[in-house]
């Protein structure tokens, strides 16, 4: 009964249940069952605790977006080589950063003992794209091709300087583990929009640019202290697409149906005797599982995709576990009203051999990312789908390790970096924010991680200050006590 997935079916089942039960369980029980599902309802009357989200669906204000696709680029893509062109760095190539700037940013343990901090100008060409003329690197021709559909934010900043705290911060609004992830907050706040699939799905792919890379962890799509059913469901790249989804060998669908029918009869028997509404939930839980077993294979079967769509996503699209596959899967999940679709693409951590690694990373990510935007757009879905693309921090203007014109490495730089967003009420064809000529500090319109979170929630009709969960005596929010909606980039 705690699962929004089950909700619409529970109502039906409750009618059966209350109609049949010898104990004639009353309406109070019904309302308590309903009330548990969302961050809504009961609280208003209780006036005591819980979230102050309101109404069925939990919107605080009209939503621009129905769903989010977050294409997280894990490891931190180099903004200097991809999105934020700095000719000055090329001009002062090899000169020490400290001769030009006061070095106030803290430095990781990897380069803090480096004798010099030479500027590494990018080796890549930048050019203007689209009518808006947004400048991007030659490594991203396809994303360049959708420049008029996206909003490039060059003034992101964060507080963490190591991967684990930084990515945890991006996913949960806090550097240390234990908080719910963005998708969990939305599942908790808004409930589900579909019958047969999870509300929040996570998918992981490994980059070919750097196959050995920063790992990921369950908590990035976990539900922290809010109930477990709001945790993201990971779609697997191997084996069953959802853990334990497939029937075992030797048990075909007819046998499975028979098993569930008799299981339901026996559980119903127990319910009639015992009256515990948990048993009714148990029955529904199994029916929902059965429906997932049907709907997931249909979801993962790409045979209904026309060739030109498959081509658009590139050659890896049919290969499970690749970023291209996950991008097309994201569109299919979006079509089925999964509310939060979280992709993680690993391998963007270029401490050295940036040239060798970045070309592979971009080959993986460029075409499918752009294809997803185009695909959503042509289906009219981009308007109500908010897409976010970016990593956990930026990279340094100075070189880590050996510097040559052709190749170099970059350490972590949380002070300024770039992400882009599209659809869901975000202004297309614009850039927002700016950094100084060495890409060291933000000079204009800084956007903090909390601001991004506030903006994402806002587009889904949720006031980030009012979506709360009480734990340890405190009303927790995704944005803690911070965050401002970045209104400038919204339509």
């Amino acid at each position, binding site marked *: 009964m705690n*699962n929004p997935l*089950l909700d619409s079916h529970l109502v039906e089942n409750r009618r059966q249940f209350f109609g049949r*039960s010898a104990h004639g369980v*009353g309406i*109070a*029980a019904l309302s308590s069952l309903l009330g548990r599902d*969302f*961050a809504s309802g*009961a609280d208003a*009357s209780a*006036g*005591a*605790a*819980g979230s102050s989200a309101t109404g069925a669906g939990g919107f605080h204000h009209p939503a621009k977006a129905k769903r989010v696709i977050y294409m997280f680029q894990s490891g931190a893509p180099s903004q200097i080589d991809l999105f934020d062109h700095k000719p000055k760095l090329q001009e002062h190539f090899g000169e020490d950063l400290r001769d030009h700037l006061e070095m106030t940013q803290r430095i*990781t*343990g*990897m380069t803090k003992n480096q004798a010099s901090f030479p500027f590494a100008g990018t080796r890549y060409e930048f050019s203007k794209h689209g009518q808006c003329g947004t400048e991007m690197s030659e490594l991203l021709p396809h994303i360049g091709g959708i420049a008029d559909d996206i909003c490039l934010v060059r003034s992101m900043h964060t507080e963490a300087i*190591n*991967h*684990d705290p930084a990515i945890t911060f991006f996913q949960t609004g806090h550097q*240390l*583990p*234990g908080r719910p992830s963005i998708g969990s907050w939305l599942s908790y706040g808004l409930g589900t929009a579909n019958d047969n699939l999870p509300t929040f799905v996570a998918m992981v792919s*490994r980059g070919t640019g750097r196959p*050995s*890379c920063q790992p*990921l*962890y369950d*908590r990035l799509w976990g539900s922290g202290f809010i109930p*477990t059913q709001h945790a993201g469901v990971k779609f*697997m790249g*191997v*084996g069953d697409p959802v*853990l*334990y*989804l497939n*029937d*075992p*060998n030797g048990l075909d669908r*007819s*046998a499975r149906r*028979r*098993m569930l029918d008799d299981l339901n009869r*026996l*559980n119903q028997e*127990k319910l009639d005797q*015992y*009256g*515990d*509404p*948990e048993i009714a*939930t*148990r029955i529904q*839980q*199994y029916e929902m599982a059965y429906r*997932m077993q049907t709907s997931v294979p249909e979801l993962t079967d790409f045979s209904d995709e026309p060739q030109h769509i498959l081509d658009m996503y590139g050659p890896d699209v049919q290969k499970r*576990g690749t970023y291209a596959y996950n991008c097309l899967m994201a569109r299919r999940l979006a079509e089925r009203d999964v509310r939060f679709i979280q992709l993680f693409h690993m391998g963007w951590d270029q401490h050295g051999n940036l040239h060798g690694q970045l070309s592979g990373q971009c080959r993986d990510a460029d075409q499918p990312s752009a294809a997803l935007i185009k695909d959503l757009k042509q289906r009219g879905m981009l308007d109500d789908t908010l897409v976010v693309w970016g990593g956990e921090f930026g990279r340094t203007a100075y070189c880590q390790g050996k510097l040559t014109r052709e190749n170099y490495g970059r*350490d972590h730089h949380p002070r300024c970096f770039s992400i882009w967003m599209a659809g869901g009420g975000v202004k297309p064809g614009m850039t927002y924010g700016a950094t100084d000529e060495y890409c060291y500090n933000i000079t204009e319109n800084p956007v903090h991680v909390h601001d991004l979170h506030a903006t994402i929630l806002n587009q889904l009709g949720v006031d980030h200050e009012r979506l709360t969960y009480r734990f340890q*005596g*405190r009303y927790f929010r995704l944005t803690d006590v911070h965050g401002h909606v970045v209104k400038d980039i919204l339509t």
Partner: protein
Amino acid sequence: MIRKALFTTTVFCLAAISHAVEPIDFNRDIRPILSDKCFHCHGPDAKNQKSDYRLDTEENLFADLGGYFGVVPGNLEDSELHYRLHTDDPVEVMPPPDANRDLTKTQKDLLDRWIKEGAVYDKHWSFKKVERPEVPQVQAVEWCRNPIDHFIMQRLESEGLQPSADASPETLFRRASLLLTGLQPESANAPAGQEAYLAELDRLFQTSDYAERQTLKWLDAARYADTDGYQVDRERSNWPWRDWVIRAFRENKPFDQFTIEQIAGDMIPEATEDQILATTFNRNHRQNAEGGALAEEFFVENVIDRVETTFTVWQGLTMGCARCHDHKYDPLSQKEFFQMYAYFNNIGENGTGQGTRANPVQDFASPLVEVPAEYVTRRAEAAKQLADAKKGLGKRREDWIASVLADIDKPKDKAWPKLKPISAKATGGKLVIQPDGTLFHTGKVGSVSYTIDWQADSELPVAAVRIDGLKDPSFTQQVGFSKSSNGNVVMTEVTLKHNGQEVPLVRAQATYSQKNFPAKNLVDGNRKTGWAIHAIPDEVASAAVYPGAPIMPKQGDAFQITLRFESPYGNHNFGKLRLGSTDNQLAALEKAGRLDAKLLAAIKLPKEKRNRGQSRQISDYFNTIDQPVMQAQKKADQIEKEMTAKGYGMVPVMVMKERAGDRMPAYLLNRGSYLEPQKDEPMQRLVPAALFYGNEDQQPKDRLELAKWMASGENPLTARVYVNRIWQSIFRTGIVKTVEDFGLQSEMPSHPELLDWLAAEFVESGWDVQHMYRLILSSRTFQQSSEVTADLLEQDPENRLLARGPRFRMDGFAIRDMALKSSGLLDPRIGGKPVKPYQPEGLWNAVSSGAGDRYRPSQGADLYRKSMYTYWKRAVNPPRQTIFDSGGREACDVNSRVTNTPLQALVLMNDVTFLEAARHLAQQSMQTHSQPSERIGAIYSSATSRQIGEKTQQILAENLQWFIDHYTKHPEEAAKFLAAGESPRDDSIAAEEHAAYMAVAHLVLNLDETITLE
């Protein structure tokens, strides 16, 4: 929290009705409103709020605000609080409309009534010392079996509720058994009558199952895991501590002792090894080994984790909130937080790096695992040999010192006389001795090794042997030392023999080493690592290897050296080389790094002038180079290594060990950041004033005294917090629902007097945990039926008033263990290394740093160990556990959660664990019974410990018949179905029939009543 909100709705209304005639109770009725709605801006965190007016203490609440008062007892009109709550003025009204903290009418009325009734103030209930309340009088006295029942019945009577009938003996015994052991009883034959029931409880307390079940809950609280967490997430080996906990529960160690040993066992005078092992509790924190992680930052995080965990587990307070600023609700200041920090920061730890090396670390074996006799014998033999080897050690050491001293006066012979090989062999190609004594290799090879012999031509000691790689025009120019594609060389290992006996080599050094290929790899015993020389600027590439002590040869003694070039790279062997040796060990030692200046100075001192530390240094060093000791030690190490691999040996365990000498200073960290210590004021060690009873000079001075204070009856919280968690484990919800928070934002206890009575009982029983379980399980309250009626569901949906018994789904650990037990597969071994049962493929390698990081399932009986022994990787939790609501063990977790999701159904439907269990359950029933009805009954009873009912029997019989028909028609399906799991099947049973019974058994394992405590 949603459920909380609901509960508050229901019970709050009930409370309001029944309390209408009762006077206002400040703790119950008023403070929760003030705390929740006002403290955020008018609370203890005075520094960070706009208003000076505070409502958090008596003094503040009634303070003179300059001619007017917030609260005037008995006078509503003059009380500013009343005005501010009720005014329509949008500027003056409180709380401000944009604060999202509006009060309900009921709440406003309560505040008004409180003021009118005289505004009686009271200290927060949980900070008051525990005093045992009177057991209340009730009308239904005959219903009550022990004092607990009186407290429960008093509330039921005041709410007008009737208790439920007693549960049947079989239901009751199954309930008790699931609670205490996490496993169903052996059979459906439940003890009849109270006496027999209590005797059975006593039997259960004696089982290891009981101890393991209690331990499992403690592991969640202690954030125990088998990896370090953070991004690198390496394996650690703190599991001997887990076994320490099991043993403590098995021995029913008094909870105060249990507390003191875990918080400060290392500081107990004459601390035993066991008491040191106990302190791992506070080293189960995560440990960051990420490349760029800064030690100072994570040192702070580790210490803070200790403070937070200790406070949550023993004090039920959210101390962590005071890290960055004064607590918003509780009387805990930021300064007090860092005064508490000062107890926990003094163990000399390094904040970063792998856990197994994150000092303080000490080697332990599991206190539970019994070492097989074979190992006991071998270990004893090795120990004896080591002792024998140490005979004459003193003499050898003195001789060695004399030889070193003699060398000091000799001129240092920098030249290394060349050795003249008498034979040379290569495993591939040809190794030819040239007239000048150099060796030349011809032929193309993959991996290769050289064996070269020579004879001693004098009695000069051999302190080191040097291998000189030489260039030749015929080699590849780039590096120049071999015929490989770039001319580089990778030498992987060097071994030396003297008269056929291997001489252990203790170190190696080289004139030049390529990055990541240091010379020490030559003598590390690992043929996969090596020394390489890419980009060497020199014409000669030299590496020297050193025996522990110089070899003293006789003229003509045989020497043999083996050089291995066994890297994966082809032709990476020296094409041309020569050998040399030196007799001057001092020359060798000085360079070697291990003989440091201090040691040399100590050696130079006359024996009688050396202090104890210096003598110790010399003997420690000599032990590492003395041949007999080294050889015996090597053997002993080998046995330990073998035992460790099998889980019998010692493994490094992270422990607490207070530093000697001056203590590490602690400072208040501004905004909680390690970058901003306020160094002008070092923090004293003090516990928060709100919790401390006694004179200032009795404040705990160190961690041990702190532990004793926590474990004393004087502490207002420890006993309350722990009995509340016991209560939660039995009834699913604590008397205080917010088990992790007993502060001002906590939920009021549903039965405050009962909580205090239990806390007092716990302390007076000598902190006897089993006594508390026995007491609660023998109450009539516990023994009620858990059937739900419409009235009960309406009046008390969450069963907080306990007019019925507990009923809830078991956790993921127990659900698997119960299935294994019913099938007879459950492995009964206790403790030891963690194991890896079945897990879906791809989970680890999908997210780890390298795609090769695979989960390799255990084999044999290890597949069927209890779920509490499942390897807990923090980055990728065991999926079965987390799908069933388990926390991630990243941080302390004392809550119990029960949600229901379709993913859980999928686990029970499709996980091989349950299919294999069903196969065995079916097999057992078929082996012991012949009639279908008996077999079905046996399957049902094994899983549920109940006699099967008629209707159930009938449905299962129909199910069986369907599957018999199905598998008779599809025998190939039967074979596939039966193939689930690694364990063998009894082939004498017809496959189709077996598969059909397996389907029935699998259905039974999926039943609501199988996985539910009822």
